[in-house]
């Protein structure tokens, strides 16, 4: 496929890795923000192409991972109601909440559908006008325009049986929280390429300046990642802390202005809780008052549930880049993708699940 295969060229990847080795002088810790980047890094073994001075920390940019347990429980409560047609992206279905996961609920007879797009959920609402259709709207800025489009069309076309259970989160407040947290190890960031197709690169400039960290907007293919790492290492070695764009084929400085205007029309900023991290002020989005007729949290009376995380799980420290999956005694033993204990194992883009998928739990055992 054009624009994919050429960015997976092995010899080209090695020549960038060589350039990184020639550039680096001192040890540095870089964090890739996105779960998709973590997955690629582990899948292609990019961390193993790098010189020992460069340590990659895996960031909290996996929306499935950071969706709080309370929200999974709310989804469970709505989906269990008789008559409700509940729609979700596939990867949310296996995330265990306090009362089990959505997939088990589906097996017990609830009508839960996996959709590719929120617009497919909207179409189901049009096709089933007598039934309430609820879409589980999770995601970062990348997913917000599609979710906003579904809400906007529902309101404009008067599709009254369509609502969204919103758990949208934002990258910059999370990065700021991370960089100012005690014990922060992050010295440079590989910025979230697809988030920036929507948001542009400008909102990362105050972050680079305030925390004196280079931010290199980076893509997801092996060559994109290696190029991002090279530019970040160059900045670190030269003592610069700027925003650079290593993903210019799809990211512009201003992002997608019209998509952002749509998001602005539908959503407003709110505080959100992040699984494994806690509440981060102004780090999420909720539907505006005008959209209350399509807001599942307003339409369904959802009780506050007491939730508890496993005491064994160290995902909070992994999401902050303080620890790696192999530092956890439960990794690959008590905690596996089939029975995850916490955030970073619940989705294939979580650091623990990515390490497990590519056999690194077996190496961890050998080391012990």
């Amino acid at each position, binding site marked *: *496929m*054009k*624009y*994919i295969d*050429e*960015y997976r060229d092995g010899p*080209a990847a090695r*020549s*960038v890795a*060589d*350039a990184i080795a*020639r550039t680096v002088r001192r040890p540095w810790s870089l964090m890739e923000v*996105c*779960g*998709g980047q973590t997955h690629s890094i582990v899948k292609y073994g990019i961390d193993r192409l790098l010189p020992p001075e460069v340590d990659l920390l895996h960031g909290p*940019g*996996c*929306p*499935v991972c950071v969706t709080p347990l309370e929200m999974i429980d709310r989804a469970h409560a709505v989906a269990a109601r008789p008559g409700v047609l509940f729609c979700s*992206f596939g*990867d949310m279905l296996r995330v265990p909440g306090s009362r089990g996961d959505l997939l088990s609920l589906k097996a017990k007879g609830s009508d839960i559908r996996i959709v*590719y*797009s*929120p*617009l*497919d959920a909207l179409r189901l609402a049009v096709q089933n006008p007598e039934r309430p259709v609820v879409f589980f709207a*999770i*995601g*970062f800025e*990348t*997913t917000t*325009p*599609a979710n906003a*489009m579904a809400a906007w*069309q529902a309101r404009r*076309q008067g599709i009254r049986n369509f609502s969204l259970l919103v758990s949208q989160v934002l990258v910059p407040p999370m990065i700021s929280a991370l960089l100012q947290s005690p014990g922060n190890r992050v010295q440079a960031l590989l910025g*979230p390429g*697809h*988030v920036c*197709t*929507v948001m542009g690169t400008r909102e990362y400039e105050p972050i680079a300046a305030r925390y004196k960290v280079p931010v290199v907007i980076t893509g*997801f293919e092996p*060559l*994109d990642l290696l*190029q991002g790492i090279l530019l970040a290492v160059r900045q670190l070695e030269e003592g610069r802390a700027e925003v650079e764009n290593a993903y*210019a*084929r*799809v*990211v*512009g400085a201003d992002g*997608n202005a*019209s*998509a952002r205007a*749509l998001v602005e029309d539908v959503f407003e900023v709110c505080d959100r809780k992040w699984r494994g991290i806690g509440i981060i002020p102004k780090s999420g989005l909720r539907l505006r008052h005008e959209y209350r007729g399509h807001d599942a949290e307003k339409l369904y009376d959802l009780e506050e549930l007491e939730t508890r995380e496993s005491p064994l799980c160290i995902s909070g420290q992994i999401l902050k880049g303080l620890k790696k999956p192999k530092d956890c005694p439960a990794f690959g033993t008590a905690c596996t993708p089939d029975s995850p204990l916490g955030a970073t194992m619940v*989705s294939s*883009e979580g650091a623990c699940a990515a390490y497990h998928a590519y056999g690194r739990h077996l190496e961890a055992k050998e080391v012990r």
Partner: protein
Amino acid sequence: MCLAVPGRVAETYRENGVLMGKVEFSGVARRVCLEHVPDARVDDYVLVHVGFALSKIDAEEARKVFEFLGELRQLGELEIPSP
């Protein structure tokens, strides 16, 4: 989750006043909302996430990565390996 994939625009049309299109990904065609990449034409490549086109792929910028790689290779060859 933020997975977004490049695809070729095969067809564009309007549905309820919204610009939509048929976009092909390695032979698989999907219905995609093109409303926010209004200048996308047939045969253009767009980056698609959950049925929504986020941006048009800039062929010129895509090429520049490989120019950068060429420069890196030349630099690598110039460098004399230390004994």
